[in-house]
């Protein structure tokens, strides 16, 4: 068992809303993320997944509890926790290469090293031909790959992604998911990925944190045992493995329970 890189200890988040009222988005959530693992936060829409991810990133402070990285409490955003959003975040005034170099530049990485690392990560996401292009010339999937390369090139300990492929068409999404498995293998990246797509969760996850809604509570930690600890990089292959269908059904049942609970 690898050591926990990230630890959430009874983390809660209460948002004040208008009229002096407040809404509890996250309620005492505790889990670990081990080094070099892919952890997926899954749950119905509005269950607090983004809020949890934003607290890990330091973009939002927990109302209660603590987020710790290597045992040190997280205060504010920093380079050790890179984030990829669902919305496009390319810096339109910079070429792809300069987008990917951005984080390294503001962190004072020397020019030659910057160039080299940028070239490596642009190649990793398959955009070498477009290194000098501007984001507005790229498709949605390519822009998202720029965002991933930009975050990874900055050398974070943790890659955080909030429904990164949600805006992409089905085929592109599938390619991106396979790309993430490749990246995790080649770069030994620890990832926390938010999704509400069950298939995506099972395909990517070493561990699934399933959340229930209103308020967001940890419902179940699911380890896809049928993978036997291996990562399968072929989507067509994984759905045929024994155990896949059962797990998918189990998660669908959990989702449906949440849905019916909400209607009451």
């Amino acid at each position: 068992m690898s050591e926990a890189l990230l630890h959430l200890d009874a983390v809660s988040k209460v948002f004040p809303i208008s009229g002096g009222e407040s809404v509890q988005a996250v309620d005492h959530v505790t889990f670990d993320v081990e080094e070099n693992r892919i952890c997926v936060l899954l749950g119905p829409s509005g269950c607090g997944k983004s809020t949890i991810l934003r607290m890990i990133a330091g973009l939002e402070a927990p109302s209660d509890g603590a987020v710790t990285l290597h045992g040190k409490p997280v205060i504010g955003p920093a380079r050790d926790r890179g984030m990829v959003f669902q919305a496009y975040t390319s810096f339109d005034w910079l070429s792809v290469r300069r987008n990917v170099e951005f984080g390294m530049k503001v962190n004072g990485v020397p020019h030659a090293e910057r160039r080299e690392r940028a070239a490596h990560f642009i190649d990793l996401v398959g955009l070498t031909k477009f290194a000098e292009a501007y984001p507005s010339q790229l498709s949605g999937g390519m822009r998202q790959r720029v965002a991933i390369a930009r975050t990874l090139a900055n050398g974070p300990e943790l890659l955080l992604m909030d429904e990164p492929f949600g805006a992409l068409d089905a085929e592109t999404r599938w390619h991106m998911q396979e790309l993430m498995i490749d990246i995790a293998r080649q770069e030994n990246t620890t990832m926390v990925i938010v999704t509400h797509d069950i298939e995506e969760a099972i395909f990517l996850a070493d561990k699934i944190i399933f959340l229930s809604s209103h308020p967001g509570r940890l419902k179940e930690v699911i380890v896809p045992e049928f993978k036997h600890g291996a990562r399968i990089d072929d989507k067509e292959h994984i759905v045929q493995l024994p155990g896949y269908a059962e797990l998918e059904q189990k998660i669908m049942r959990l989702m449906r329970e949440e849905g019916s609970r909400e209607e009451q």
Partner: protein
Amino acid sequence: MPTPHQARHFLEIRKPVSRPQAILSAFGIWAVFFGIWSVAAHSGWVNALLVPPPDQVFATTWDLFASRGFASDVLISITRVLVSFAMACAVAIPLGVMMGTFPSVEAIFNPFVGAWRYLPAPSFIPILLMWFGTGEAPKLALLFIGVVFFLITLVMDHTKNVRKELIETALTLGASRQVTVMQVVFPAALPDIFTAMRQMLAMAWTYLVIAEIVASTTGIGAMMMRARRFLKTDEILSGIIVIGALGLFFDLAFGRLHRWLFPYRKETR
């Protein structure tokens, strides 16, 4: 080739017109305008003293530049616009970006700037004349006041429109607040700020003419007021044409510059 069942009507709802048709239409409307003007002035429908024919106005315009030193008036007017506009930008852009980025800064300045916007700049002319006398200062001050408060508000709004995710991306990449503002918020808002500058430059021309008509002995507006005293309607109309041409020129130049500076903006349109 249009097939019979899709024959084009002249009035097609929101169908773009071809380039030749666009050019023909534009020239056509101006030809009609000058045609009516010309016929009205030459045929004596209107008093030719009050409405001189266009050919006379153009001849006068030429003569003003060629032999009566009008170029120096034009140059003075352009200088006033550009100097006061540069001063307004130097204040409005940094302040507007700060206000659009930091709600604490907005909370200080917005109640102030917001109120000034409702004061028509020309209402300051009498007091500006008392404070600054008759030199360049009151004219520059009027143009500055007329432009700066609107520009601050526009820059602030465009800065606020920079998407939160862009800022948060910079922060999670390890950028400091200062780097985030200078290297993400500002460049992201810049194309829109530039468009706001283009709009406000047109407004600066409006205030220039007011300043020169009311209180100046130099510049295009002053020339027009001199001409009025001697009933030189052709010179007044020349002044109007030159002001229009300059406004058009600066607007086109800004448009060009925008496309050149922000080529990535074109492709998303």
